[in-house]
């Protein structure tokens, strides 16, 4: 008995000794990231340069898809490169309409978009919804990390705090812009602000709520934003806020069934008064040096692309490589590989026909290549059918090319002054008050003069809404405006205007009106039951 007690004691002591000795090792479970690209928040914000870098991260989400090169992505559910903001925007606004055809329909989603047979599982639609909401999340995070309380805690210098006032306004601008696109494309969005916790279930905002938020938010931040053209290239000034306001007012009838054309005119005028001027050459807007050539006076907001520092499979890289002809192998002149992407992009007939007539032969906006080609596209996968376009280029206006043969230096002109000129005319034609007819003529004719179009002395009688929608196509094609424009003109859905492959018919058929809105992606709908699927999906 005594022996047993001794044994039990010994076993107990051994065990205790072990537990004591080894429990101390559990603190090793607190690890920190070791990669030199990764930082813990506390270490990141220890340096005051963090705030500008974090702001660049919010902007960066409009150009980049991830932090580890053009093949990386911080959203899932589709090809990394395809998830670039400008790329999905281009697909949803331009590929879905009458200007563009993508040859490789086995790239998921492209077939459904360009034939208007999409559904809620389309990866490109998912990409737009996901990418844009990530911008909102990044902006909210920026605002959360730059509250006065946080800045006090970190003893941020007054010089930096003064800058942060602007930064915060820009973050709010980018968030409002994201909601603008959600309102336009989906009519709904997950609504979160910096006051909501990470991973909290967001409420869903409908079109009216989004309209009200975008409008009030842009007006609220106006004072904190830099004056037009008084900010570093790549950042947003008051001009961008005015542009978005002008856009939502122009489309208010579509969004909230109210006419706001006068408000639209007000903001067009503010922009025009802001000092922007047309580039000396139409082509400058779409060239590798459009950040420094004369287009830098015209482009109100660019999506940055750079062959070295900001590589992405965004709209300019896609349109320059993709538009290289399968027959022509004309890539070398555009500063990319001679064969490009083998003829990925071509033109639909209806767009080509907008340039019919002698006056468009010298029009520099007409960069259509038709030689050896048939205008008809009967087989989408045959890259030799249909005309091609040479609008965007990785060449510089001063000679020479961008640094890389795939990733172009050409920024995508998301907003530019020419658009405002035509919006000014349209808002007037739609009943907005306050336009000056003489100015209107100057604006419209100046676009034609710049484009070297001999018919550059149009009168008020020449300018009606039919003219505007066509002139917008001639001026702004392949710039991600077309679907929105056609909807405003009542020509997107229904059968009053058909284009080839519309509705999956070779020469185009009517499509139902619910297609004016894209469906909420199934994954997004499932992850936030507050959203309601759009009608017809």
């Amino acid at each position: 008995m005594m022996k047993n007690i001794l044994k039990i004691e010994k076993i107990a002591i051994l065990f205790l000794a072990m537990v004591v000795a080894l429990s101390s090792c559990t603190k090793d479970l607190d690890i920190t990231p070791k990669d030199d690209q990764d930082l813990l928040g506390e270490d990141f914000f220890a340096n005051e340069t963090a705030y500008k870098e974090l702001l660049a991260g919010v902007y960066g989400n409009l150009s980049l898809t991830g932090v580890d090169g053009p093949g990386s992505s911080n959203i899932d559910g589709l090809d990394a490169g395809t998830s670039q903001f400008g790329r999905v925007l281009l697909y949803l606004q331009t590929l879905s309409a009458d200007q563009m055809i993508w040859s490789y329909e086995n790239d998921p989603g492209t077939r459904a978009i360009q034939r208007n047979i999409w559904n809620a599982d389309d990866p490109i639609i998912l990409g737009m919804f996901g990418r844009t909401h990530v911008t909102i999340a990044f902006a909210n995070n920026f605002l959360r990390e730059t509250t006065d309380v946080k800045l006090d805690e970190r003893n941020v210098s007054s010089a930096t705090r003064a800058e942060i006032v602007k930064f915060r306004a820009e973050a709010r601008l980018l968030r409002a812009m994201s909601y603008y696109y959600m309102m336009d494309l989906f009519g709904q969005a997950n609504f979160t602000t910096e006051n909501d916790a990470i991973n909290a279930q967001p409420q869903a905002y409908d079109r009216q709520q989004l309209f009200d938020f975008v409008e009030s938010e842009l007006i609220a931040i106006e004072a904190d934003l830099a004056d037009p053209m008084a900010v570093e290239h790549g950042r947003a000034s008051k001009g961008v806020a005015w542009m978005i306001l002008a856009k939502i007012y122009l489309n208010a009838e579509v969004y909230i069934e109210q006419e706001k054309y006068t408000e639209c005119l007000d903001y067009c005028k503010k922009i025009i008064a802001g000092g922007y001027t047309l580039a000396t050459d139409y082509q400058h807007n779409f060239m590798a040096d459009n950040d420094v050539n004369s287009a830098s006076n015209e482009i109100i907001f660019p999506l940055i692309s750079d062959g070295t520092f900001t590589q992405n499979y965004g709209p300019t890289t896609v349109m320059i490589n993709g538009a290289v002809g399968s027959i022509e192998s004309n890539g070398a002149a555009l500063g990319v590989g001679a064969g490009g992407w083998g003829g990925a992009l071509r033109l639909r007939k209806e767009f080509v026909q907008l340039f019919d007539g002698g006056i468009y032969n010298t029009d520099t906006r007409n960069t259509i290549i038709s030689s050896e080609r048939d205008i008809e596209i009967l087989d989408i996968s045959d890259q030799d059918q249909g005309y091609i376009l040479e609008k965007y280029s990785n060449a510089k206006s001063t000679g020479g090319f961008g640094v890389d043969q795939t990733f172009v230096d050409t920024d995508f002109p998301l907003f530019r002054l020419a658009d405002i000129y035509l919006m000014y005319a349209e808002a007037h034609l739609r009943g907005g008050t306050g336009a000056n007819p003489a100015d209107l003529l100057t604006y419209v004719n100046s676009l034609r003069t710049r484009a070297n179009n001999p018919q550059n002395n149009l009168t008020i009688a020449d300018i009606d809404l039919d003219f505007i929608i066509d002139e917008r196509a001639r001026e702004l094609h392949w710039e991600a405006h077309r679907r929105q424009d056609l909807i405003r003109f009542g020509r997107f859905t229904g059968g009053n205007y058909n284009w080839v492959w519309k509705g999956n018919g070779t020469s185009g058929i009517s499509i139902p009106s619910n297609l004016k809105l894209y469906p909420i992606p199934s994954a997004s709908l499932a992850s936030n039951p507050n959203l309601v699927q759009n009608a017809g999906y």
Partner: protein
Amino acid sequence: MKKLKLFLIGILLSSSFAMFAQQTAKGIVKEKTSGDPLPGVSIIVKGTQKGAETDFNGNFNLPNVKAGDILLFRYLGYANKEVTITSNFNLVVELEESSQQLDEIVVVGYGTTTVKDATGSVEAITAKEFTKGNIVTPENLLSGRVAGVNITTSGAPGSGSQIRIRGGSSLNASNDPLVVIDGLPLSGVDLNSINPNDIESFSVLKDASATSIYGSRGANGVIIITTKKGRTEYTLDYDVQVGFGEIKNRVSVFNGDEFRNLVNTRRPSDAGLLGTANTNWQDEIFQKSVATQHNLTARGQIFGFLPTRLSVNFSEIEGNLLTSQFDRSNISVSMNPSFFDDHLKVSLNYNRAFVDNRSADSGQVNSALRYDPTQPVYDPTSPFGGFYQHINRTPGGILVENGTRNPVAALLQNNNNSNRFRQFGNLKLDYKLHFLPEVTATVSAGFDKSKEEGSFFSPLNSPANYTDLFVGGEGSFINEFENENFNAYFTYVNTFDKLKTDVMVGYDYQSFNSSGNSTGNIRNPNDQGATSYVNTPVVLVGFLARANLTFNEKYLLTLNYRRDGTSRFGPQNRWGNFGGAAFAWRMSDENFLKDNEVISELKLRASYGVNGQQDGIAGDLYLDRYRFGNQNSQYIFGGNPIHSTIPSERSSLKWENTATIELGIDYGLFDNRISGSINAFQKNSTDLLSDAPVADASNFTNRVLQNIGDLQVNGLEFTLNADVVKTQELDWNINFNATYIDREIKELALGQDITTGGIAGGTGNFIQLYSEGFAPNSFFVYKQLYDTAGKPIEGAYADLNGDGIINTDDRYLKENPQADLALGFQSNFNYKNFDLTFNLRAQIGNYVYNNVNSSLGQYDLLQDNAVLGNIPTSVLDTDFQRTSDVILSDIYLENASFLRMDNITLGYTFDRPIKKFASNSIRLWAGMQNVFILTNYSGLDPEVFNGIDNTIYPRPRTFLVGANIKF
């Protein structure tokens, strides 16, 4: 110390008073057939705790025994033997290699048990049961051998394998089993630098009761590898084998003449692009290969006390795709001394491996299918190193690449080399306490370090890194990995009357670090340049305990418990409790069966256990992290690049749990001439670590790892071992195993399907889905429509939802890549000095999506950018024109059930050919690997990872000859 001595003397005195007429039994234990002494045999006086062990020369000394005592001799792989002491206290005991395995020692986590006492699904595979043949990596010793274990190895020389035990229990977390070598848990299945010849045995732990001692790491099963140890007697073994391999099968594409006809009919306008050659590109990229392996093993006692094993392996394995080559040299040392009357046993293993691998891009198999067969391999006028290429120079001096690149040039002009140096080892001390011999303290420390240095090179005249300049390619990379483990445990073994107890408590600590860098292509000024990475370290800590209770030798109970902490989860979810219980009833020992003529062994088992899972996911999702863009992912403000920085996704994860319930029977019939087991199990994985959609804008991504989802695996396993004939001269043993597995996703996050299975043909296309109610990776296809003649109609799919539109809503789920039934059969036949072994493996109900035909088998692809390209002849059956119309059709989904003979080997052994030495033998053998395969699958090989047949490295058929020489 003085007290301790007094204590010990006390015990001695008290015990000697209690007994009388006691003597010391002495003797030697030998191996029955060879007569070699056996060291380390355990000897116990039955019914007591008294025991001893043989020394290195097989001798033992067991004091205090008396006539009538029964001595029980036990040794790994040998049948137990009981010897009753009569008047003779000087014994010569011969042990026989066990056929019935019941008393075989089975290594389980942190200890051992015997087959007889095992309560769970644990299978021990020792050297004599290993799968034979062309074994380059250790896991292939198990191929087809164990029910529920599926091993898929590609044809690339020395390539690793995918191992699945019972199909795996996760979706997004790891499905790899835990591999433990001599007590050192590895990171993943990383075995191709280990010499198979060093392996003594495998234990495969399948049920949750057995695996739960590995807690968080056992959910996908555990494979415990025990390496060969040092011995006292001196032996020298030399094994050599030479293999001659060849890939016989070809994907059927058009030959030069057929191709010219086809183009003249289908694309007459392109006839001018045709060449005059007749090149079979597949013949050009495949080569016959020679592979040699040498193993030299010396064992013996050095310095008079240090039993040691030293083994050296040299393998030179040529691949069957041009230029591929795998060379490996290993040195392994094992030392196993004992001290203080065997109270302290030391086991030291150290292994160094050097692997030199030149990898050939298996994607060139696809280029070979695609390349125009009317063009020659070489073109004396070509500026590309004399290889024909579809590249022109325009009058302006611009190079235009017109189509697929010459695959022969791509292989010969690209040199991708990696040199990996790996060293791992383990030091284990077992100390049986002097003052408390029932308790053994074990301390084990191990490490596994690897450094891989690789380089790539392509000459200036190669189009490999094509730009308008011929820049060629040159660069290097380094990957480093380190894994450190420490574990310690106490084992307490005692018998109280009819109750045998075996209790263990322990602790385990392991850390993993990895990092690397790459130069990028230093010749190309536009390349992204040098990059580096350091993975967030992972630390795992576990506290563990186990009790084995055996009552009356018939009723067995095992309880396991483990508390695990992982650095992958935040402090609030960090710790998980895992464990299991198993009960077994040795029914055959009950009176009503004891004398049964037919049933010699019958054990019923039931177990339940819970394992955790945290492997295979990022280790820092709970931290407040930011990541800035690399050199190509920055933003530009005012012309100045700026480190744009974004917050990384956040998720508060917890343990994924797998609960397994299992019922089993171990049976033996006719004196265990026939034996085996039957298991039925159900695994339920809950809180699956799923990469699932998260509400947009609520996180910094749209999909993040979350604990949502359930997966259920139901299975049945059957094994049968039969000694069909067992006589002095003729011995025929067969082994058969069958596994039925059914995996079904019960719940997914938000009920949302998750796409998997990316395929070639289009950017971002996928063919598989995780969907509730279906097996993981079920194929997601359109239902092909056929005309009345049975010919498929291009682009015509069934409108399954009847809405009049054919879109993704009409895709449906059909079949999955996992076999419903997997069968293995092994036969070992010995007649006199001849031995003949073969094994067969079959899978039934596994489906494969033929991505070669789906992405290449359409007439449009006769155009390869600006030139002509070859296509598979399968297009003649379909007459399909356009890839995008048909790529997702179920016509490309095929039943890939197969029966394969992996290996057949015939050997002859010469006993003592050299009379000068006391014992020596030479065995000469010849065999064939990958002998035949029966299947209806139309592709090259029906056995593909994850059911998507794209560019696999084909498996060669290999003839082997070899010799085993022993001294």
